[in-house]
C-alpha cells in the first residue's frame, strides 16, 4: 500500500505539472490570437503549424538551434571525457575535491555566472585588457555578441552535466580490463576503443542528453552573449510570446521543439536498451 503510494506520488506530480500544462499548450497552439483576455480563441485549426512550416525563418532557426546545441554537446564531450577520466583515476581524497570543484559553480546563480562572462569578454573586459596589455593585439577583439561567445557560455554552463554521468560510468570501470586488453595484444589506444569507450557509453549517452536538451532551448545565454543576428529558437519563442503576444504561434513553436527533442531521445533510448540486451 505504502509502496504503491510512494511510486504513485511522483507520477501524480508529473501528471499534474507536466502533462496538464502540456495539454494546455497544445490546445493554445491550435487556436488563433485575439486581443483580449485570454489572448486566444477557442477554435481548433492547424494554421499555426502550417505557418511555421511555410516561413523559412523558423526552419532555419530550428536548424541553427540544433546545430549550436549539437556542437556545444560535442565540445562538452571532448572536454569532459578526459576530465572525467582523470578524476576517476585519482586517489579517493583528490577525487572528492575535484568533484567538489566541478559542482562548486552551482552555488552561484546561473544568471550571475553568465553576466560574469559578459564582464570577461567585453571589448574593454578582462580578456581584451590582458591581451592588449601583453601586446598580443593592438585593438580589442569582438568577443561579445558572437556565436563564439554563445559557445563559451553553453560549454561553460553545461560541462558539469557532461562530466558527472561520465565520471559515474568511468569510476565503476575496473582498470584491470584495460590492462587485460593490453596483455592480449591491444595497444593503449586500441584498448581504449575496445574496452573503455564501450563501457563508458551509458555515461556518454546520459551526458549528451543532459547537455543537448537544455542547450537547444537555451534562452538566457544566446540572449545575453549572442549577437542580434544569432537567432535561436528559445529567443523566437520568447519574442512570439512576450513581444508579439501571439500565444498560439508561440505554443506551436514550443510543440515543434518538443517533437524535435523527443525523436533523438527515443532513438537513443532504443539504442541503449538494445545495448543492455546485448550485455544481459
Amino acid at each position, binding site marked *: 500500500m505504502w509502496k504503491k503510494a510512494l511510486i504513485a506520488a511522483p507520477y501524480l506530480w508529473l501528471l499534474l505539472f507536466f502533462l496538464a500544462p502540456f495539454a494546455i499548450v497544445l490546445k493554445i497552439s491550435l487556436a488563433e490570437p485575439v486581443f483580449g483576455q485570454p489572448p486566444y480563441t477557442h477554435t481548433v485549426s492547424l494554421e499555426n503549424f502550417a505557418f511555421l512550416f511555410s516561413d523559412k525563418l523558423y526552419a532555419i532557426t530550428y536548424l541553427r538551434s540544433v546545430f549550436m546545441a549539437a556542437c556545444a554537446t560535442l565540445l562538452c564531450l571532448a572536454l569532459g571525457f578526459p576530465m572525467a577520466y582523470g578524476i576517476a583515476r585519482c586517489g579517493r581524497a583528490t577525487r572528492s575535491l575535484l568533484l567538489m570543484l566541478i559542482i562548486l559553480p552551482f552555488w552561484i546563480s546561473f544568471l550571475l555566472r553568465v553576466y560574469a562572462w559578459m564582464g570577461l569578454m567585453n571589448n574593454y573586459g578582462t580578456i581584451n585588457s590582458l591581451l592588449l596589455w601583453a601586446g598580443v593585439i593592438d585593438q580589442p577583439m569582438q568577443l561579445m555578441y558572437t556565436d563564439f561567445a554563445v559557445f563559451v557560455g553553453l560549454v561553460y554552463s553545461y560541462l558539469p552535466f557532461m562530466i558527472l554521468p561520465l565520471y559515474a560510468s568511468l569510476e565503476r570501470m575496473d582498470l584491470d580490463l584495460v590492462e*587485460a586488453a593490453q596483455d592480449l595484444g591491444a595497444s593503449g589506444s586500441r584498448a581504449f576503443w575496445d574496452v573503455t569507450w564501450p563501457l563508458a557509453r551509458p555515461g556518454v549517452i546520459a551526458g549528451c542528453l543532459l547537455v543537448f536538451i537544455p542547450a537547444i532551448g537555451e534562452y538566457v545565454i544566446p540572449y545575453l552573449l549572442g549577437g542580434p543576428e544569432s537567432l535561436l529558437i528559445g529567443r523566437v519563442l520568447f519574442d512570439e510570446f512576450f513581444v508579439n503576444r501571439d500565444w498560439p504561434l508561440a505554443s506551436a513553436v514550443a510543440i515543434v521543439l518538443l517533437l524535435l527533442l523527443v525523436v533523438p531521445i527515443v532513438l537513443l533510448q532504443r539504442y541503449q536498451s538494445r545495448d543492455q540486451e546485448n550485455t544481459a
Partner: protein
Amino acid sequence: MKDFIRIRGISKHFGDFAAVDNVDLTIEKGELFAILGGSGCGKTTLLRMLAGFETPTSGTIEIDGVDVTNQPPYERHVNMMFQSYAVFPHMSVEKNIAYGLRKERTPGKEIAKRVDEMLELVQLGNFRSRKPDQLSGGQRQRVALARALIKRPKVLLLDEPLAALDKKLRERTQFELMNIQDELGVTFVVVTHDQEEAMTLSTRIAVMDNGRFQQIGTPKEIYEFPANRFVAEFIGTINTFKGRVAAVADEGIKVYSTEAGVTLTALGKQLVEEGQEIEVAVRPEKIFISKEKPESDDDVCIEGVVDDLGYLGNRSLYRIRLESGKIVQVSSQNRRRSITRFLEWEDKVWISWRAGSAVVLLD
C-alpha cells in the same frame, strides 16, 4: 631448455620504497612456479614486471633468450590471468576468448577453430554466447584462463588464481589448473598469499618478503627445511625453542634450551659455532603426545600439561605448557574413533619427537 625465464638484479622503486629489491630468479620451461608472500611483499609488482605493466628501475628480464625488459605488454609472449579475472563485461564468452587472436589479425577460420579448442579445454562449450554476468565466479575464471591461453603464450602469469573461489571449487580448480598445465606444457608463474595453494599447485616456490626472496625450493624443502624464521612461520605453524649450541655432532647440532628444559638435536646445513644462540624448530604434527613417558632414548621427551585443546574432526590441536611456561603446539591425527576424550585440560602429558624432526633456524 634450462633457464627459460631469467630475472637478473631486478628492482622496482616507488619513490623511496623498494617494492622489489635486487632479485635474481631463473625458472625452467614447463615449471609451475609459485611466488608466495604476504600482502605488500612485492610479489604482485614482480608479476606485473613480467607482464610488462611495470618497468623495472634496474635489472633485466629475459624470456626464452629474448630480453623483454622494455617491451610493452602487448608485444610480449606472456599472458596473464588477473585476480579479478578482468573478463570483458560487454563481450560474450566466445568474443572474450577470441580477443587476443583478433588483435593478432588471425584469420577468422583459425580463430573459430582455436576458440572451440579452448572452450572444450575449459568445458564452457554450452556457454559460448553467454555474457559474463550470466556466469558463476568459477566459470568466469575459466573464461579468463581460456582467454589467456588461446595465444599460446610462452609464460602464463596467474595472480591469486584461487583466491576468489569457495573452498570446494578451489580444490577442483587447483587440479584442473595442474592438468591443463601438464597438457599444454606452458610455464606457469603463480602469485599467491596462500601457502596451501602454493604447496599443492607448484613444482617450486619462492617465498618473498620485503621485496626479496627468503627461500626458493620445492614445497617439501621449504616446509621441512625452512631457511629462516620468516619462512618457517609463514608456511604452516612451527614451534621454536631458543637455545645455545652445545656441540656440533655427526647426527646433528646439539642445542641446550632452557625453554625446553632439555638438550635438543636439530638438523641443519647452516654453519654454527659452539655457544652460539640459535633456535630449534619442530612442526606440530611431528610431535607425539602420550600420557606415559615414551621409552625410546633417541627421542626428545618433555613433560608438560594440557593448556588448551581443540577438536577439528580429522585431527586435534593441543597447546601444551612446559615447566618453563613455554607453550608448544601439537597436532595429532584422530585415527581411532572414541566418544570420550583422550585428554582433558590440565592433564599431565609427555610430548616427544624423533631427533631428526627438528631443524635449526637462524634469523
